[in-house]
């Protein structure tokens, strides 16, 4: 967020939703700021889509309040909310042309025809579909349908654009391209986007902030970097990226450092500033370390803070990266280590003993 003092646009307080005896949402509290790209990330069934549909006005909360732009949305129907949605299926009206689809909402506002035509063309140009207004809806490709759905929402100039898994129907290459375009468009327009996705990579690359949801609750609300570097618990850590979990025990803190006994890596001290607040040291039983935070020290590589020795059990070559499975002493499972394939760096064969370097500040504590 570039803006120095973020203005809240959506306020969720104690939002709960029951479907019969099933509790889909168990009290959601969150504030989403103006101009923010906010993602709701979680596995299917975590309640993220229900929450989005409640913001849109398609579902009514069982309890709690939803405020948009300082106004309580209780009793305000979907057609009078300052939000517009891009549906997962795109919901392009099949009997209307591209221009009629995009101009659909403007027509309900009873704007003059010429103005609608101008705004529609502007919106189409914004999503790189300029001049395609006369196309029939069924003549569009998947990517084009997605753009029409986006233009149809943006042309309404809503306070908030809601996106329900908008990229899940596209193939990988198109999806990557649309991620970049969506993000650029959002930053250019400065409109708040709320994205629902189960794809952690999508959430990480596009969002200003991410709310990770499990079982109807927000498990962690943080920036992508914070979420990746400092996941609040093991479940979040394994949901976002790859994480090596190692047994550990806290030996006690002194002089601003915390002493840890990690059988697989040895005894270390980590700065107390990296210990999350409210974490009971007695309960620490696991530490996590990302594959890229472990380094196989080839000859001539830079020195790292800590070094241990492991045995390569297998390798997976990905072109730009190589993923090693390495057995560390005192740990029952292999850890994953990712190494960038730079010029002149050979790939350690399976069975070879390698020095593994790491740093205490890359350790994440879990209880």
């Amino acid at each position, binding site marked *: 967020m570039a803006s120095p003092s973020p203005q809240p646009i959506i306020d969720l307080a104690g939002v709960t939703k029951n479907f019969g005896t099933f509790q889909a949402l168990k009290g959601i509290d969150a504030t989403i700021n103006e101009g923010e790209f906010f993602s709701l990330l979680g596995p299917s069934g975590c309640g993220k889509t229900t929450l989005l549909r409640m913001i*849109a*006005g*398609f579902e009514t909360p069982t309890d709690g309040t939803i405020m948009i732009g300082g106004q309580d949305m209780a009793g305000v*129907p*979907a*057609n*009078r909310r300052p*939000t*517009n*949605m891009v*549906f*997962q*299926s795109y*919901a392009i*009206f*099949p*009997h209307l042309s591209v221009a009629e689809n995009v101009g*659909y*909402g403007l027509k*309900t*506002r009873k704007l003059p025809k010429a103005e609608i035509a101008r705004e529609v063309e502007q919106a189409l140009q914004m999503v790189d579909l300029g001049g395609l207004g006369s196309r*029939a809806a*069924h003549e569009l490709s998947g990517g084009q349908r997605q753009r029409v759905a986006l233009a*149809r929402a943006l042309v*309404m100039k809503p306070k908030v654009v809601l996106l329900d898994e908008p990229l899940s129907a596209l193939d990988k290459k198109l999806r990557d391209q649309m991620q970049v375009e969506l993000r650029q468009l959002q930053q250019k327009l400065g409109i708040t986007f709320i994205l629902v996705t189960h794809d952690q990579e999508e959430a990480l690359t596009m969002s200003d902030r991410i709310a990770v949801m499990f079982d109807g609750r927000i498990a962690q609300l943080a920036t992508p970097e914070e979420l990746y570097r400092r996941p609040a618990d093991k479940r979040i850590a394994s949901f976002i990226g790859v994480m090596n979990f190692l047994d550990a025990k806290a030996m006690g803190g002194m002089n601003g450092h915390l002493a840890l006994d990690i059988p697989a890596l040895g005894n270390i001290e980590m700065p107390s500033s990296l210990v999350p607040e409210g974490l009971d040291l007695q309960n620490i039983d696991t530490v996590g370390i990302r594959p890229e935070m472990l380094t196989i020290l080839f000859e001539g590589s830079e020195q790292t803070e800590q070094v241990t020795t492991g045995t390569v059990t297998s390798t997976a070559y990905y072109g730009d990266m190589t993923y090693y499975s390495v057995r560390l002493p005192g740990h029952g499972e292999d850890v994953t280590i990712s190494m960038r394939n730079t010029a002149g760096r050979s790939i350690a064969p399976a069975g070879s003993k390698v020095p593994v370097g790491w740093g205490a500040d890359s350790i994440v504590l879990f209880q």
Partner: protein
Amino acid sequence: MKSWLQLFSAKWLAVYAVAYMVFLYAPVILLPMFAFNDATVISFPLSGFTSKWFGVLWETEALHGAVRNSLIVGLSSAVLSTMLGACAARAAARYRFPLKRSMMSFIMLPLVLPEIIVAVALLVLLMQLGMPLSLVTVVLGHVLICTPFAIAILNSAFQGLDLSLEEASYDLGESRWGTFRRIVLPLVMPGVVSSLLITFTISLDEFIIAFFLTGTEVTLPVYIWSQLRFPTKLPSVMALGTILLALSVLLLILAEWFRRRAARKQGIEASATGGFA
């Protein structure tokens, strides 16, 4: 052994198919044949071409009344049963309610109920209610048997309607009524037209219920039946039958054409939406 069996079944399947078609359509072809035959007696050999039997129809006053009655009954039954069918199909597609399945089966029951039973039951009921027999009672009876057909046709139209289209419309600021007018109606229109055409055709052809429930004003099939008693009228009845046959076939083709065109326009495979005709 296997190839012999295959040969046998392939050959006899073709014979069976041809025999079936002859059985099904030969009587129907006789109708126009004798309608254009220049003789009062319905028998072979044909004795020459004429269109005078159609001329006789034109001059029969009683027939005109029957045609008018049938049109009134057909149009009313088609509109009423299509409206009822649309409500039922919509409810079946959108809402979940207790006993939905058994309720839908009960609505569809008149489709397989013997018509004579329905006709007698309705007659008894109307007598009990003290309602005089008229075209209104015929319309009521026809709505009863047409509605299941309307539901069957409209079900596929409403089932194929993606709920998110309606949500998208609300989301873009449109009201419920506006959404119905701008999204739902245009998308189910082919089904509605198809239902109107088919229920009209059913009502136009229906005899038993019309026979039981009509008062002094007869519909076309009842009129035809009454004319069969007079051998001299037979060729003109054949002519009338030919017109009705052509009209029915035309209406059914039109109904199917509407449905397919709409499916094509939406980029859906026509067979996927489930045709009726």
